[in-house]
């Protein structure tokens, strides 16, 4: 996208000279670096409950964030009004963090070449609501038709279209248009007047609306949600204590996000508060494990052409054959650690300061046949679906909650078990990975990661893996 054709120029009449002037204002009290992040965001959502489309909403928000960095200090201010005097005021407020001579002269703003990872001609947000509302109606119908034991269905379809413009005192000028769409379906099932069980499925990405019509349809998500709810009706109490755990492919990759991903974000390591601090080059997983964070996958929920500091995203190897290779860097930490930025600087919106964040985090495929992995387990737990997870960066302890899992007995899946949390320690847990499947799968596009109050969309993925020892938090 060309600067001259962007919404910030055509609608808000912002010129290159304006950007130069705002950056000069931001650095008027000194400082090493300044950047501007302009955002124009359109959102919509439609939800169905009890077979009625009960809610539909759309909105617009816009603003600009101004950041000034002086050494380890950050000054930040934002405005939700793009009038020149409001932007200048924000720049002056952010400038207060520094004390020194102001910087003058041109910053040489230059549009570099960037990826084109989501060549979406018409974003879902730009399509007719009459088309989009059909998605939730179809999901409702399909979940109810999937099984007579399904008695409640909710579905939400939500999309947004975000236009961004980043201008930095390093001369970076980056524009992006980021479409994002997602469907979620929840089904409740019960039998013989017993207690209900819930199932959930969802997905999406930086895609056209056609993705939900041709690839992952509302019926696909609906049947999956219904299947999980019905499967859980026969669930028995989950076991408690240490045992062998097999993770199915796809979304269970949330293990990697919690166990290693957060702990490798550079801000925690620069400050020395992560359980992974100072461990580059050390063995933190079995040699079967290679874990990457890749922001360049086409159309994925966690992908970005440029990060929120205007840097091109990359494929970053975090763990290679069990050895810790690198951290996820943003502008501030990479400068202070004398490292390269890895294109990992992200923020929730113009009102937020960027931080090192993950994009799409996954483990590369191994050699084992998934069937053979299950057959090798005399007694253990097979987890195929999860709710959320969380990590304590400093101790390295992490949890993730299994929403669908099965007992493995003599190499065969037997009974479904009720929800249970799994707990482990980041630098230790992956040392017990003894088999890695050849069936790498990425999740369907449902993840949202929270850090210090900021939420950003992410992806995860994993092949079937066997972990010889992990603590399962059941009751039996």
């Amino acid at each position, binding site marked *: 996208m060309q600067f001259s054709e962007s919404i910030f120029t055509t609608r808000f009449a912002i010129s290159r000279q304006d950007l130069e002037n705002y950056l000069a204002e931001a650095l008027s009290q000194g400082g090493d670096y300044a950047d501007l992040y302009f955002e124009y965001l359109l959102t919509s959502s439609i939800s169905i409950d009890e077979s009625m*489309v*009960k809610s539909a*909403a759309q909105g617009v928000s*816009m*603003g600009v964030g101004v950041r000034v960095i002086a050494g380890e200090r950050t000054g930040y201010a934002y405005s939700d009004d793009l009038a020149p005097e409001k932007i200048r005021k924000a720049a002056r407020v952010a400038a207060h963090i520094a004390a020194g001579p102001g910087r003058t002269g041109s910053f040489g703003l230059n549009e570099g070449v960037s990826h084109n990872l989501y060549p979406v001609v018409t974003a879902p947000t730009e399509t007719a609501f009459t088309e989009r509302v059909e998605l939730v109606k179809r999901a409702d119908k399909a979940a109810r038709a999937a099984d007579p034991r399904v008695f409640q269905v909710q579905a939400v379809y939500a999309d947004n279209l975000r236009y961004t413009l980043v201008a930095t005192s390093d001369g970076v000028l980056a524009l992006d248009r980021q479409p994002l769409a997602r469907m979620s379906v929840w089904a409740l099932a019960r039998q013989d007047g017993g207690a209900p069980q819930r199932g959930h499925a969802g997905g999406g990405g930086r895609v056209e609306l056609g993705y939900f019509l041709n690839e992952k349809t509302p019926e696909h998500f609906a049947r999956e949600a219904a299947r999980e709810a019905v499967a859980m009706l026969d669930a028995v109490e989950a076991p408690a204590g240490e045992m062998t755990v097999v993770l199915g492919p796809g979304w269970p990759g949330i293990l990697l996000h919690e166990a290693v991903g957060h702990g490798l974000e550079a801000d925690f390591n620069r400050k020395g508060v992560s359980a992974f601090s100072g461990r580059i080059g050390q063995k933190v997983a079995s040699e079967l494990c290679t874990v990457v964070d890749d922001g360049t996958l086409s159309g994925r929920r966690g992908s970005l052409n440029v990060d929120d500091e205007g840097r091109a995203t990359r494929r970053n190897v975090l763990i290679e054959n069990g050895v810790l290779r690198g951290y996820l860097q943003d502008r501030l930490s990479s400068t202070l650690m004398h490292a390269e930025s890895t294109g990992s600087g992200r923020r929730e919106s113009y009102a937020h300061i960027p931080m090192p964040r993950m994009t799409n985090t996954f483990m590369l495929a191994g050699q084992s046949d998934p069937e053979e992995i299950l057959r090798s387990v005399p007694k253990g737990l097979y987890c195929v679906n999860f709710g959320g997870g969380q990590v304590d960066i400093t*101790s390295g302890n992490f949890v993730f909650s299994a929403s669908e899992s099965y007992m493995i007995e003599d190499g065969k899946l037997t009974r479904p078990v009720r929800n249970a949390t799994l707990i482990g320690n980041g630098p230790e847990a992956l040392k017990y990975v003894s088999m890695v499947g050849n069936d790498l799968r990425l999740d369907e596009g449902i993840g949202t990661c929270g850090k210090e109050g900021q939420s950003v969309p992410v992806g995860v993925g994993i092949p079937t893996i066997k972990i010889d020892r992990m*603590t399962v*938090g059941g009751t039996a």
Partner: protein
Amino acid sequence: MSESHLSGLARELVGRALEAGASDAECTIAEGEEFSANVRMREIESLKEAGSRGAGLRIMKGRTTGSSYTSDLSREGLDRLVAAAIELAEITTGDPHAGLPDADELGSIDGDLGLYSADVEGLETERKIEAARCAEEAALSADPRIFNSEGASFETHVGRHIFANSRGFAGEYRSSYCSLSAAPVARDGESMERDYWYTLARGFAGLEPAEQVGRMAAERALRRLNPVKVPTQKVPVVFEPRTARTLLDNLFEAVHGMAIYRHESFLAGKLGQKVAAGNVTVIDDATLPGLFGSSPFDDEGVPSRRTVVIEGGVLKSYLLNSYAARKLGLKTTGNASRGLTGNAGIGHGNLYLEKGAPTAEQVIAGVADGFYVTELMGFGVNVVTGDYSRGAAGLWIRNGELAYAVSEVTIAGNLKDMLLNIEAVGADLEFRGSVAAPTLKIGEMTVGGK
């Protein structure tokens, strides 16, 4: 309180929606100013300051509805706001229970709730930074094992909330808060642990001393050092107030009106039944002056009130907005909650569990062998079934005393049994946010470990 010009704007938007064809309309406007200062290892790490505002509109057209929001309050932006909500009414389904509260249900409680303190706005930046510095310094100098810090932060927020609807309601209130927190990191050999402590209040004067916040944070981090992973076993579990409070978060989801009519809660259909031990009384009260869950009216314009949720172990009321109330054939409890737009959801006011007689020490003294939980992790609570399984850390209780640190374990049970099995309720109830509970002892849960 003088009415702001935004109140006029809210009424104007309601009027314009009616002119554009809506049969009813509700408008929410929020504006606020935020400030935060972070100090780390005795240096300023970041300063952030900004203001923002936005408007949201929800309209009814007969029994269909449409919603929109914008941060663009220009003439053009507001035109689009009205048109966007009207447009969406075309794709929603007529819902016989949808609508606004009845006119006689609307209103606002009288008197000053103490939600706004003028001392927050006048506070100098230097003083805010100093408070953060002082809290972190107290933590860093508390013990040589405190070797690092994630910093201390001081935050303020001042805002104005405006709501108007086509049934004649128009109201607004100002609010403020400030908070101070510290997060030190302790190390002993290979063991590294972090913890935090905080204070928050509507005004600066209401904050606890910065030194106390820092020292408390340091004590908490220190007592987590050198934890062990205990064997898997069933034992009594004591929740300190910071973790006991999360059980009320779970209870809130289970008495949430939307979850009730959808049968998505283990408490659906249990009104009037015994659902907790006899020593358990839970109140939701949005009328308590100065507290964080208080407001003069809810987000549908219904006056705030006190609702007894559980009394002596018996489930007395769900928490409802007008929609959930109509679905269940009940009356709204004034618990409507929403952001700028969309249908109203349900929120709580000040939700708390009434205090009992024993001190925390007495509760702990009553446990021969058990787990004192100071930290919970993850999302392993299913309110449909009541299944409860979360990551936990804390201290082991041996012969009635806190003996050693425990981490990397889980605690599991079912909320139905856990509520019925509350054997002791402490006297140490205090509000540090809008949900509060004293020390609680649950007779038995499964601790998952080695």
